[in-house]
């Protein structure tokens, strides 16, 4: 716990240093003369359902942009687990028995350097629950070149987690992780954009779940997967607008490989249809498949040496996701008594995941929320 606290302090120091720099740095912006602050607030309620677990996840946040271009953002997430997972050792539903709190703060600023724009953003996040504590710091940088026709984006994160077991006071686990991504976004023509990216992850420590037990010759044994995981992903996104139909097509694809032997493939198609200036409908289909980890077995022989796990997400499986999202622009509230909310939107999203994991069954993910700009 002390290590996580130290990491959180480090994150705080980094953010304060960046804040000082952003306040002192000078850039010329249109709003600087008027001294106007702009920003937005949002609030979401996410819901996750599967046979063994139901989660309510309310989130809220605010973004502010100062007249000198400095951006501040903060949000808070509450994870309310209504029925804990069977994987966590529960045998019956227990209402609202687990809570996770996750505050996150960040600061950023854009810098114009000739025709190029450099955007920097630093975010610190802390997550706490009864048996798990996590702190992370993320630095994002993007460089917009050639009148924003080409955007290079870099992201780097450092994370330290500490886990305990509520059923076994002797257990203690730590994860230290680095993650990074690089992407290139290229405008192809006035209606088309292509983005390609690479993601990397390095995790070291206890990467299992202390509540999950594998079967070794019919006897339960706490899982202990390898303590090092190196993850690589390649992603692409192609977006195209069809003016005559007022419709956009987003085609996404991701391939993944790691040193545990898991290989993933994940294509997705999203179609956005605009109805007038107020309504936007999104339909999506997502396919996912993965191979099993080298050391994954449903049951291990007595003389098995090395890592063991009973994590269903390390088995071979595939899933299909279908869903929709509706966004309503609140511009229609102009000149009414709700005029203050006219610059925003409300949205509703629902996805159904047909998964091949028998233990979890199909999933339903839902989100409802709103965003207000000022």
């Amino acid at each position, binding site marked *: 716990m002390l290590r996580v606290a130290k990491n959180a302090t480090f994150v705080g120091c980094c953010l304060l240093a960046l804040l000082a720099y952003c306040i002192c740095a000078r850039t010329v912006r249109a709003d600087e003369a008027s001294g106007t602050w702009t920003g937005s607030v949002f609030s979401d309620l996410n819901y996750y359902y599967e046979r063994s677990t139901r989660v309510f996840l309310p989130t809220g946040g605010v973004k502010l942009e100062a007249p000198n271009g400095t951006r501040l953002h903060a949000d808070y997430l509450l994870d309310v687990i209504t029925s804990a997972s069977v994987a966590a050792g529960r045998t019956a539903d227990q209402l609202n028995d687990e809570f996770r709190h996750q505050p996150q703060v960040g600061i950023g600023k854009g810098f114009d350097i000739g025709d190029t724009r450099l955007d920097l953003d630093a975010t610190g996040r802390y*997550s*706490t629950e009864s048996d798990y504590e996590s702190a992370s710091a993320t630095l994002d940088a993007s460089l917009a070149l050639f009148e924003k*026709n080409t955007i290079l984006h870099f992201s780097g994160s450092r994370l330290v*987690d500490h886990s305990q077991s509520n059923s076994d006071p002797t257990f203690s686990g730590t*994860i230290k992780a680095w993650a990074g991504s690089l992407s290139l976004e290229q405008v192809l023509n006035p209606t088309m954009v292509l983005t390609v990216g690479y993601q990397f*992850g390095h995790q070291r420590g206890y990467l299992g779940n202390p509540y999950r037990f594998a079967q070794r010759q019919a006897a339960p044994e706490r899982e202990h997967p390898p303590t090092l995981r190196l993850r690589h992903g390649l992603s692409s996104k192609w977006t195209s607008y069809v003016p005559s139909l007022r419709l956009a097509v987003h085609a996404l694809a991701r391939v993944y490989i790691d040193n545990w032997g898991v290989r993933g493939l994940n294509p997705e198609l999203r179609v956005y249809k*605009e109805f007038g200036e107020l309504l936007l409908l999104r339909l999506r289909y997502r396919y996912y498949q993965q191979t099993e980890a080298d050391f994954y077995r449903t049951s291990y022989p007595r003389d098995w040496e090395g890592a063991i796990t009973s994590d269903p*997400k390390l088995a071979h499986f595939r899933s299909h996701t279908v869903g929709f999202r509706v966004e309503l622009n609140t511009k229609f509230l102009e000149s009414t008594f709700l005029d203050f909310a006219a610059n925003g939107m409300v949205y509703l999203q629902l996805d159904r995941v047909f998964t091949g994991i028998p233990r979890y069954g199909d999933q339903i993910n839902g989100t409802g929320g709103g*965003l207000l700009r000022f």
Partner: protein
Amino acid sequence: MSLRLLLLSSLLLAACQHVAPYEREYLARPSMDTAMREASNRTFESHVHEAREGSGGGGETSGGGCGCN
């Protein structure tokens, strides 16, 4: 395979044209520029993927939460 990808990428990039700011009308449509509006939901979705898919995560980190590890 990687050679084909490289060739395809080169062809796509060679085919791209410079788009001036006044030509970005369609690129700025809400159906094209979804990143900011869907950001909060993407966080939730990433967390779900990381909890239920072996290849979730990778370029990003999210600690804690049900089924997180």
